[in-house]
């Protein structure tokens, strides 16, 4: 008998983690959790194990009195202390289940704090995201923080030759690649959140309380004057998104795309850039695309008909599934701990023959559910974050690690997933996994495959 009520080995994380990650992508910003000390410490530990960078997250350090009388005093004191010690330009404040349950009105407390300190001009910018851990998952916290950053900082005005890119929860390497593409198109851009340096930077001669890098507040301010926004994330709805806010508030058109993984999705992204910049795709990317198409031909036999179980954040799962269909792999199960309610529909749009292919979709699941499905579906490999390793080991299934977190391999922050280059890397890894399995299981010991 299988227990259904409890969540076992969760395939999701809590809301505040996503917010802290997004805040790390704003220049000179300290993430600040309004709740118990443990939340900040656990989240730091979890992020550090993936990014291998110091990640300071302040906490308002609730105690029993705070919980009874409200968090106002602690939050104000905490903001004062963190300002004194970190001298940040921005404080990114996110709530937790505790402060949400006692009903702290954080925006009001922030206004009081501003008044107390002699006005906002003397203070760091305060960006607030409501991230109760009892609803949604880490990806909701991530988007809430990004939307809130834009809401707090963006100003309208005469349109500029500028494009906003809200790239979602991707790797630092992916962010660097997107910036390279936009730079090569010669398009001034504002990418948010940019943790490509803050979470994957160089060594330090002295400790930086806040690591260098990140999207600047002035760039975010300009986002209201951009000529367009591009936003990745199939299940991300305008009402919850930064680009959605900018469209509604300042009339910046929102171009909503799936994460560009695979040739078709990357084509869509680059075609959009061509349209927005009225420029041809630079030859460099034509080259990357040609090499990728060539690689698809060279490797197609290894992967055709292979069955994969795919899990992680819904948007990642959707885009990777569509890519797998380009190369003949069947994602027999597309699973997520998230539960936007949109995953199946979005998958259907990208993979119209989903049902004929026997592709099953399950949202709101945990790793024990996925494992049960694996016993039934007998996939050839797993594709997802490192938390699937327990299942991978137990059922002797190769695990191709993508996304977040990757706690048991080196260099998760430097993995590419997006665009032609990211797809190439992903494709190479998948083909090599299949080859390695065949080589290992063959008694002959072929030295060429």
């Amino acid at each position, binding site marked *: *008998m299988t227990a259904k009520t409890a969540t076992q080995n969760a395939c999701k994380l809590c809301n505040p983690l996503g917010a802290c990650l997004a805040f790390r992508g704003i220049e000179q910003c300290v993430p600040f959790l309004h709740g118990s000390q443990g939340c900040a410490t656990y989240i730091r530990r979890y992020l550090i194990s993936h990014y291998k960078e110091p990640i300071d*997250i302040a*906490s308002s350090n609730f105690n*029993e009195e705070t*919980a009874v009388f409200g968090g106002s005093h602690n939050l104000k004191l905490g903001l004062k202390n963190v300002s004194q010690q970190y001298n940040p330009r921005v404080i990114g404040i996110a709530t937790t289940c*505790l402060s949400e349950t006692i009903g702290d009105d954080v925006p009001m407390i922030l206004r009081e704090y501003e008044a107390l300190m002699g006005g906002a001009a003397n203070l760091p910018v305060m960006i607030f995201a409501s991230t109760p*851990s009892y609803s949604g998952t880490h990806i909701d916290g991530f988007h809430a923080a990004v939307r809130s950053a834009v809401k707090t900082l963006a100003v309208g005005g005469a349109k500029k030759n500028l494009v906003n890119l809200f790239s979602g929860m991707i790797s630092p390497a992916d962010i660097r690649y997107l910036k390279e593409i936009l730079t090569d198109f010669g398009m001034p851009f504002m990418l948010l959140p940019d943790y490509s340096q803050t979470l994957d930077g160089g060594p330090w001669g*002295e*400790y930086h309380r806040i690591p260098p890098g990140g999207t600047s507040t002035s760039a975010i301010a300009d986002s209201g004057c951009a000529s367009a926004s591009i936003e990745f994330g199939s299940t991300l709805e305008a009402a919850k998104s930064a680009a959605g806010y900018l469209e509604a508030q300042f009339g910046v058109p929102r171009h909503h795309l799936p994460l560009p993984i695979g040739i078709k999705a990357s084509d869509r992204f680059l075609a959009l850039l061509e349209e927005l910049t009225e420029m041809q795709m630079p030859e460099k990317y034509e080259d990357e695309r040609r090499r990728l198409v060539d690689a698809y031909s060279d490797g197609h036999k290894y992967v055709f008909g292979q069955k994969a179980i795919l899990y992680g954040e819904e948007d990642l799962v959707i885009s990777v599934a569509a890519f797998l269909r380009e190369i003949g792999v069947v994602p027999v199960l597309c699973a997520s701990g998230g539960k936007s309610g949109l995953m199946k529909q979005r998958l259907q749009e990208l993979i119209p023959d989903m049902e004929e292919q026997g592709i099953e979709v399950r949202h709101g699941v945990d790793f024990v559910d996925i494992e049960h499905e694996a016993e039934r579906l007998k996939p050839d490999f797993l594709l997802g974050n490192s938390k699937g390793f327990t299942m991978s080991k137990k059922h002797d299934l190769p695990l191709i690690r993508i996304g977040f977190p990757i706690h048991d391999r080196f260099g998760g922050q430097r993995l590419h997933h997006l665009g032609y280059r990211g797809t190439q890397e992903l494709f190479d890894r998948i083909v090599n996994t299949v080859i390695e399995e065949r080589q290992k299981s063959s008694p002959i010991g072929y030295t060429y495959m």
Partner: protein
Amino acid sequence: MDTQNISLLEGREKQVYEKRAGGAEVDIACDKTSLSGSVSQRACVFCGSRVVLYPVADAIHIVHGPIGCAAYTWDIRGAVSSGPELHRLSFSTDLQEMDVIYGGEKKLYKSLIELIDQYQPNAAFIYSTCIIGLIGDDIEAVCKKVAKEKGIPVLPVHSEGFKGTKKDGYKAACHALMTLIGQGSTEGISKYSINILGEFNLAGEAWIIREYYEKMGIEVVATMTGDGRIDAIRRSHGATLNVVQCSGSMTTLAKDMEEKYGIPFIRVSYFGFEDMSKSLYDVAQHFPDRPDIMEKAKEIVRDEIRKYYPEMQKFKAALAGKKAAIYVGGAFKTFSLIKALRTIGMSVVLAGSQTGNKDDYRALKEMCDEGTVIVDDSNPVELSKFILEKEADLLIGGVKERPIAFKLGVGFCDHNHERKIPLAGFIGMYYFAKEVYESVMSPVWQFAPRKGGKR
């Protein structure tokens, strides 16, 4: 950046002390909750309970609350088991908004019944997280009901994150253990017997220690909680002596057992040759009517040190004069590490802990060299400042301290719960020295800015 002028947070001055000739008496203000707005390396009450009970391998551990607390503590420690591995699974009631509004008791009850049916554990621990303390779920009642229906102990652990510090979490865990102790039969337990407390079997450390004691002719009734089993814990009141490591977490339990069952306890540490040897001698001394136990202890110490001494000399030759910074959870561990580092020729320039008490810090001052900085509940800014100022070559800490060391181009040794290499026992001292050597002597630091590693 202005590392020279890092100001201590207001209210932190009393938690930092530098040993100077003729300096003031050490009066570190510890036992305080962390300051609001600081980036403490500490955790919360839940974390304290979770680390103590985590290694009990034939029980299920259910975290009652929203998903985070369970997700972040899923299989995160190197605590190994010789049998069942239920402790490596993560269970959460995963409370949603409606549960928060209408209460989570029903969900908890249902979760418990289903999980017990599926996994057939010997007990269940139910951890309350922050909001349970607010929404008023009657956890005790649910636990009693399920215990009755399923015929196994179902133990509430009152570990609401905000209700104190990590130490209060230790107490809550000890309280749950105390409920179990006394329930089993003590028949057949030798007079020459001990419980090993505060040893969590990281990388099999409890097995190493247990073997030493068994070689001495001593019966180990229960290890708490490393490679822990409910039945062993239930009969642990039959032991003659409690041997307590990690004083911070388990002294409460030892004191309670002394009071209720008249079992005396001694404090030990298994880190470093010196303290490891002492922990065998101290136990042997407790059984004066059996001189053979002491003889055997001496023999073990002799043989083991002889085995590792030559290698240690090699490490020492390379490491002599290098400087270390220590920032770990408990102060008692800090003492052992200072001694262990001296064994390999290294001095300590920074010593601190998350949860030491006044006596610990006084003792620490006694042990430390002139100029050593002593900190309580420190943070990354402070730690970095002292590491750089004191030109440390090594930092000993946990996962949150690791990137600080690596960013600054300083060697690092993980002495926390995630480690995969045993550092306890004589063999552990060898691994410790080896790890320190491999990190401090690595050629990669030549490229670090600290070493002027410009192109």
